[in-house]
């Protein structure tokens, strides 16, 4: 066991001298500068109708997408965009991210109308036995209230630029993306203590951008344009009373995807089957103590979606995980101890050295308030896999001036095992033979290193006036022995049978670099004005950039913008009618992976994604005593040709409409 002794001592000291991690302190969410709590009503008012729309609600998260459906995100500069390290929780249960990529929310058998509130955590945190090193999105669902309720929803969007009647003239142009329609249905029954809720959602997305058609035209089979199709039924049951709460959830998603697979250099048509069953609960103990637990089974199965190349990811991954923790609290000191386990098994025709993976962990957190205005927190998690030990330590302190002004400092250290990352590279090192085009190449290191990361976040939050809060935040990240993939895409036109002109592939030359060292620095400043429930607006400027870094580290981080400005306004001039606006400026980003392909592609592929301005507007009206709501959004109102990814679709102005009918106890009241 190669554990550095000073490290363990430091971690133990942290455990006993601090307090419960800031990011988890639900009682201080309104003043926690590193956790943003967004109500379901706000989510709904913003025109969101897909779960990944949540990513646009935090100024400190930067998200990009190739086709507008599957998003990669970097939370508060905790990671570059390569790979998903942010974690999604649903009612405390961590969602098992697929090792093969894709974002961890778009496939969930969960509906946006089930959301009670969302916590967006911008710092590493330990939550229910899981270390969320890349930030977290914690979705809390609404518990059905007494009675019977049903909800039905419909949402759809349309991007401008179709040929219209000119389709039949010499001025014909290709069709562009439609969005949706998405349907949602929910039914629930509750007696006030026990509830059952069933739901189903379906969604579709038309990936008809010419860049995507060019890459998929010779693989995709069908007489219509490439479509992503999703169908996801779900079930949730629970019981709550004075002794605690227990809930059981299950769901299954069939997602016919076009997954952009960088090793293959283009999208792979695949049928992603996701099944999950989970149980979680909190049981009250003596005094102010409680036991909290969860257990979950999930399965990601990437079956072949019929395609001309017979490309098959040949991958099924099952996961069993759970945790048990004991929490105790007092007015001055509170703490928590827990253990967790995560077991993965992969089924594939590739000869894996070990298809099973077991990670066991033990963790604890403590919160101490020496005086009323000073709070300290510390947490420690150790995990063990393949005979090696990973360590995570959290330390936070904050000074609160009567709930008005807050100064917080939050630091974390993470020594992460490759087994904990559980990503594509781990499994490829383990023997998985991912689909690779004949023109592509791949270079893997002889062994995978344990990576180290230190992060520090400081925030000064001042409330000089009753409804106005100023906030300045700074961040520093130090990465050591870190792993980052680098691709060298080459553009190659193809003459294979296609429906469309301009077919091409991106020949991928991939390499996993490790032992990289880098530093990232960031600053942000914002003003928030709230006169709830009538008016709320916020403007935040975010600056982030790497420095003193290895060239390969720099390469991966230059695809994050250095400057961002995020402005939101929510205005509800009269009850049941609201306007929501969001303005985003993002500076240009550089993508060295596409440097070679860009000039060869004649402008299809970019090396530099230009800066962009995006303005979204949503109007929402509630009718019939809140039984019915309608919203309409114009996205990209300024109609700039907007792209976030060098190989991604170009988006223009689009109109989205959403209708929701709710009856009985399912009703969600409009903000009064």
């Amino acid at each position, binding site marked *: 066991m190669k554990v550095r002794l000073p490290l363990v001592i430091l971690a133990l000291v942290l455990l006993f001298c601090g307090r419960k991690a800031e990011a988890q302190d639900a009682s201080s969410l309104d003043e926690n500068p590193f956790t943003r709590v967004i109500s379901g009503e706000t989510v709904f008012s913003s025109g969101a109708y897909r779960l990944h729309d949540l990513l646009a609600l935090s100024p400190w998260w930067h998200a990009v997408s190739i086709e507008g459906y599957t998003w990669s995100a970097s939370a508060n500069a905790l990671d570059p965009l390569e790979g998903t390290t942010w974690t999604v929780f649903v009612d405390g249960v961590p969602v098992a991210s697929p090792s093969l990529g894709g974002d961890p929310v778009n496939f969930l058998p969960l509906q946006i109308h089930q959301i009670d509130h969302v916590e967006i955590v911008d710092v590493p945190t330990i939550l229910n036995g899981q270390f969320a090193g890349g930030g977290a999105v914690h979705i809390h669902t609404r518990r059905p209230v007494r009675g019977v309720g049903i909800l039905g929803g419909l949402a759809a969007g*349309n991007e*401008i*630029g*179709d*040929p*219209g*009647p*000119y*389709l*039949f*003239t010499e*001025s*014909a*142009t290709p*069709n562009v993306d*439609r969005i949706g329609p998405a349907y949602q249905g929910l039914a629930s029954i509750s007696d006030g203590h026990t509830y059952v809720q069933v739901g189903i959602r379906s969604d579709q997305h038309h990936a008809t951008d010419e860049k995507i058609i060019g890459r998929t035209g010779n693989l995709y089979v069908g*007489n*219509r*344009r490439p479509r992503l199709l999703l169908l996801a039924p779900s079930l949730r049951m629970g019981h709550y009373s004075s002794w605690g709460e227990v809930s059981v959830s299950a769901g299954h998603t069939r997602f016919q995807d076009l997954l952009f697979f960088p090793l293959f250099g283009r999208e792979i048509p695949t049928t992603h089957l996701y099944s999950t069953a989970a149980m979680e609960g909190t049981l009250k103990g003596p005094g102010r103590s409680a036991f909290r637990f969860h257990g979950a089974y999930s399965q990601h199965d990437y079956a072949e979606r019929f395609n001309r190349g017979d490309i098959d990811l040949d991958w099924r991954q099952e996961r069993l995980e759970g945790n048990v923790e004991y929490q105790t609290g007092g007015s001055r000191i509170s703490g928590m101890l827990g253990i967790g386990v995560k077991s993965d098994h992969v089924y594939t025709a590739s000869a894996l050295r070990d298809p099973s993976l077991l990670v066991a962990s033990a963790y604890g957190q403590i919160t101490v308030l020496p005086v009323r205005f000073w709070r300290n927190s510390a947490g420690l998690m150790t995990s063990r896999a393949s005979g090696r030990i990973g360590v995570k330590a959290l330390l936070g302190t904050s000074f609160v001036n009567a709930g008005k002004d807050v100064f917080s400092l939050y630091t974390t250290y993470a020594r992460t095992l490759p087994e904990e990352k559980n990503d594509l590279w781990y499994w490829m090192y383990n023997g998985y033979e991912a689909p690779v085009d004949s023109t592509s190449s791949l270079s893997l290191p002889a062994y995978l290193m344990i990576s180290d990361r230190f992060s520090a976040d400081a925030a000064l939050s001042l409330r000089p006036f009753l409804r106005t809060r100023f906030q300045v935040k700074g961040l520093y990240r130090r990465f050591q022995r870190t792993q980052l993939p680098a691709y060298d895409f080459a553009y190659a036109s193809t003459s294979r049978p296609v429906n469309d002109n301009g077919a091409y592939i991106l020949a991928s030359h991939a390499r996993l670099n490790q032992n990289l060292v880098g530093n990232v620095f960031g600053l942000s400043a914002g003003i928030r004005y709230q006169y709830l429930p009538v008016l709320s607006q916020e403007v935040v400027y975010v600056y982030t950039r790497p420095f003193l870094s290895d060239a390969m580290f720099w390469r991966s981080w230059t695809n994050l913008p250095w400057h961002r400005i995020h402005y939101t306004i929510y205005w509800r*001039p*009269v009850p*049941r*009618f609201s306007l929501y606006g969001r303005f985003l400026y993002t500076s240009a980003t550089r993508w060295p992976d596409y440097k070679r392909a860009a000039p060869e592609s004649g402008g299809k592929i970019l090396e530099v994604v230009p800066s962009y301005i995006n303005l979204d507007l949503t109007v929402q009206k509630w*009718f*019939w*005593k809140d039984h*019915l709501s309608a919203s*309409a959004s*114009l996205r990209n*109102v*300024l*109609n700039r040709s907007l792209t976030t990814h060098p190989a991604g679709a170009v988006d223009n*102005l*689009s*109109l989205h409409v959403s209708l929701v009918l709710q009856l009985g106890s399912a009703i969600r009241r409009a903000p009064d």
Partner: protein
Amino acid sequence: MKKLIFQLLLLSCFSPLYAQNGERAFETISIYVGGTHHVNHTRFNDYWNPGTGLELTVKTPFYLGYAEAGGALQPFDGFAMDVPDFYSLGVFVGWGFRFRQLSPLEILAGVRAGNNRMSFDYDAYYGERNESELTLAVRSEVALRLFRGWSVFAAGTYAKTYTYIRLKPFYVTAGVSHTFNTPQWLRTILR
């Protein structure tokens, strides 16, 4: 789009400086029925001859100004054999305001946003028979009140449908309208 935003701002400048009393919102319903015709000549008219269509609009006082919803159905005849005839169904919601009423004349101005669905006579590209596209419009209207809530009106609407080559028709619409107190059940729904 920028022009439309500018026009919207311009219209707002002329709006009353105070909001209508919230109690009056949804108090009455006005139903407008009229014939509508595409009168300007654009590139579009080189391929299609517009016929006279039918427009149905429902207006009600909103918290500020008025809100409306409706649809317009219009036929278009293709000049050439390989250019199909089609029907255009524009469904929209709108908002606007009434200028101070010069009884019995009433002047209204507003904006509309909606979807223009074009249904072609035969199978099109990849089997599609329909095309849908966002449409934004600005509109001015004059109404002459007659008796018992009945009016006649004439309106001009400049619309922009955001197809790749924009459709920019100017429509003239004329017809009758009837205004009545909103039934209680409908007021409950709308509020």
